[in-house]
């Protein structure tokens, strides 16, 4: 198939693991961690970023020859802001409760460093199709981390996944709770997200020693 050469596939697959935007490139941590207390919010946030980064990369790539380099940051911000407004309005219309939960963090997609980083590093120098793949790949790499963190925080913190009780009922003491298990309230508070990401980085770098940094 001509559409996806090996190199193109690399554009999507690399950011998922060895060039992950969060754990390796240190981008986009800002708006990510605070909303991972629930798996559902993490998933919606990931979808929103996939949309914004995929479309945004294509738009910037199409305009790359006509943007004067002096004002490119402002042009990029306007493109992202427009896309984020679309996401925000769609969320408000179809998932109002969720958009309340995400709160100001939908708006903060604008300042998500992954998006600006990919515009600067890739879309300004490559064609639309490659930029699209690169955008989707990086956004998925971001989403993977978000979903892993959301999964562990919701499971260990409140014993549910997507709102369904997995371990039984904590009040009626059924299921696992009958054996004396308690929810770990620590996982709900914001700092736990940082520690979970720290552990993910630890695991990833133990498996692949090439990634280990100097102190």
């Amino acid at each position, binding site marked *: 198939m001509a559409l996806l050469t090996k190199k193109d596939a690399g554009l999507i697959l690399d950011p998922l693991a060895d060039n992950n935007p969060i754990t390796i490139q240190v981008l986009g941590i800002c708006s990510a961690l605070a909303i991972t207390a629930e798996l559902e919010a993490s998933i919606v946030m990931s979808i929103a970023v996939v949309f914004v980064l995929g479309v945004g990369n294509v738009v910037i790539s199409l305009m790359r020859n006509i943007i004067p380099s002096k004002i490119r*940051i402002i042009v990029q911000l306007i493109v992202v802001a427009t896309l984020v*407004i679309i996401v925000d309005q769609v969320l408000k219309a179809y998932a109002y409760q969720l958009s309340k939960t995400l709160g100001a963090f939908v*708006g*903060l997609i604008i300042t998500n460093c992954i998006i600006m980083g990919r515009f600067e590093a890739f879309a300004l120098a490559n064609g639309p199709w490659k930029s699209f793949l690169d955008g989707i790949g990086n956004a998925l790499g971001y989403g993977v981390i978000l979903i892993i963190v959301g999964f562990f925080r919701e499971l260990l913190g409140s014993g549910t996944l997507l709102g369904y009780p997995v371990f039984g009922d904590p009040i009626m003491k059924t299921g696992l709770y009958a054996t004396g298990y308690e929810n770990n309230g620590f996982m709900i508070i*914001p*700092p736990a997200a*940082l*520690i979970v990401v720290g552990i993910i980085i*630890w695991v990833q770098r133990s498996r692949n020693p090439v990634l280990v940094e100097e102190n």
Partner: protein
Amino acid sequence: MLEHIELFFKSIFIDNMVFAVFLGMCSYLAVSKKVATAVGLGAAVIFVLAVTVPLNWLLDKYLLQDGALVWLGEEYADYNLGFLSFILFIATIATMVQLVEIIVEKFSPSLYNSLGIFLPLIAVNCAILGGSLFMQAREIATLGLALNYGVSSGIGWFLAILAIAAIREKIRYSNVPAPLRGLGITFIITGLMGIGFQSFGGMLTGGDDAPAPVEDTTAEVLEKVEAPVLEEGEIKKEELEENEVSYNDLTQK
């Protein structure tokens, strides 16, 4: 006056930009290797926040809020331009950052060089836009309070990056497990510092009300998922402490 003081301490310690809501993490992680650069960036963030939050407050009040256009005339009273806030806020911020860049380049070229790419990146520092968005979400009432909020959130961010830079300068001499070096250990330290900062949450409740976990958007998430058992325990503990305090007061008098 009291509300100013309360907002000041609350934004620095309890709702700390870095430890409570994770804003500005990218530059926080990237520029915190040396104390000197951290101080420079921190100062720039305080300045940009102090200017953009009040400016955006004015925009919000006179352009964006539901019915804000009423000063143009009665027929504009039911316009709601709220959906434009992202674009207007980010435009203000981008302009101000450009201004700061010019000023810093003129007056302190050495600082300008050491900050490098991160100075223009203040524009995409989530803490800056976050400051304006939280200002809007929390419905901060007056221009003075908005200025206060901008400055004090900036100071909170400054404190956080200063602390982590100092720790990272020292940790170079420690024997950190190889896979954790650099980014990993910084994340975990930040998490631990965040836990420390959570304890400031008791500072302003005074013990009268049941302690609200964290008062921002994360609070909504918290309330939903927190097990009721845990909450009950917390209230009891708080009540106990209060009783103890009042008992001590009585005996002293």
